[in-house]
């Protein structure tokens, strides 16, 4: 079973979004950036990860969920 970079990017998407979410709350509580101003960062990060997924060389792309 070969792991493609697309698989990795797709797999790390959740954890990275979770970390960003946590950072935004930290920015609210410990810094000067309230969450209601910074939430679009989540969209941007999500968009970037999707973009990366498209740009990455996907080798033999397995159909989504086909191999689990």
């Amino acid at each position, binding site marked *: 079973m070969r792991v493609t970079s697309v698989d990795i990017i797709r797999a790390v998407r959740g*954890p990275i979004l979770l970390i960003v979410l946590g950072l935004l709350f930290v920015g609210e509580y410990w810094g000067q950036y309230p969450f209601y101003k910074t939430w679009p960062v989540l969209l941007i990060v999500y968009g970037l990860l999707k973009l990366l997924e498209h740009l990455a060389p996907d080798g033999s792309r397995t159909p989504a969920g086909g191999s689990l």
Partner: protein
Amino acid sequence: MKRRSLAGPLLLILIGVWFLMSTLRPDLQLLDLAARFWPFVLIGWGALRLLEILVWAVRGQEMPRSGLAGSEWTLVVFLCLAGSALYWVNYDRPWGRFAIGANSVEIFGRSFDYTIPEQKVPAGKATRVLVENLHGTVRVTGADAQDVTVGGRKSVRALQDKDADEADRQTKVDAAVNGDMVVVRTNQDRFTGRQRVTTDVELTVPRGFSVEVRGRNNDSIEVSSVNGSVEVAADDASVRLDGIGGNVRLTDVRKSDLIRAANVKGAVDIQGGRGRDIELDTIAGEVVIDGSYSGDLEFKNLAKPLRLTAPNAELRVERTPGEIHMDLGKFEATNLVGPIRLTSGRPRDVEIEKFTQPLDLSLDHGDITLRPLDTPLSKIAAHTHNGQVELTLPEKAAFDLKASTNRGEVSNDFGDPLKAVSDEHGRGSGSITGTIGQGPAIVVQTDRGAVTVRKDSGAPLAAHSGHIQPEIEKH
């Protein structure tokens, strides 16, 4: 082999430890910790998953379809909601009195106390003082002095000393002369942080000064022993005034537990408020109250007219040498000088003892008990839609009585020369009429309820209730 993340078990352990600590060491303020640090749980969780995925990738193991399963995202959402709520309750409360209980302060942070350094401002040509304090108490006392002295205490609720110190630094109390006015500001509006600053400011001013206080959420505003006027505007405050030489105006006290004024030489004007209790004692000027008050209203020794306008009641009394006590369901008064006018749109029992000058009373619902006591009598017009009427008239008074009910019993306890007339054993209409000498018209009427007329024996009013001796002439 199905791979499982370590995040789930670790999260469980973390929660378990947290609960264990909060039961074993209640002094650690763990709610505080949770409120501030929960976002780091998200970060740690994300980092752990990331690490796991990278390790799997390096080992060439199969990747999960998504880094975080749907159920995990649900948990994340719950965590965010719970954490935000905790933080919000803890630090972001925009109002002052979200009282979870007295312990909430202990749970959610500590209170740091500071003493406001005493400042003396020479009054010079100033004749009045303006105090601006958004949160906390204000106490102004007049004294035989030439200076305005400012002092007091400040408390900051915060988690750490340095936060509290910063809050204290940014909210220095200013006192300066500006034209004919000494302006004292507590500057809480300048403070940008989240900590809550409460300033209890105490002033001593030259006795001739006028005082103006502007607040927002003030536990209490007290002014005493000044010869000038007093003006108070605050959203939510208890106001206590004593020994005021000039007029008193409470223009914008929107909410109050108590408004108390005693020994005021000027007029008292309370406008547009909602609150609970009002106590006015020994007021030389006119008293005007316009607002809605749900508690006890007490007026004692008012030398000039009292005018009260409430959503469901209107009262006007020329002078009150005695006292008036009223609440939502009752109006009791002794020793009033009329003309007296009272209308009430809500159920209210009215009891007035010892009054002179005309009385005009109109109730929607409630019993009326009247005992003018003094002779000669004045004109009385009293009407209730639903309630008993009890009238106690002095033995030697002159009057022209017309007491009637549309449905109810009548009892003439006064005896001759009054005549009682009743239909159908008290189920129909009835009346008591009669004239003694050349007296004023006394008209009391109820649409539904008993009518009783008594002869005054001079005993206290309450002693009358309970032993009615009907004396009805059948029609």
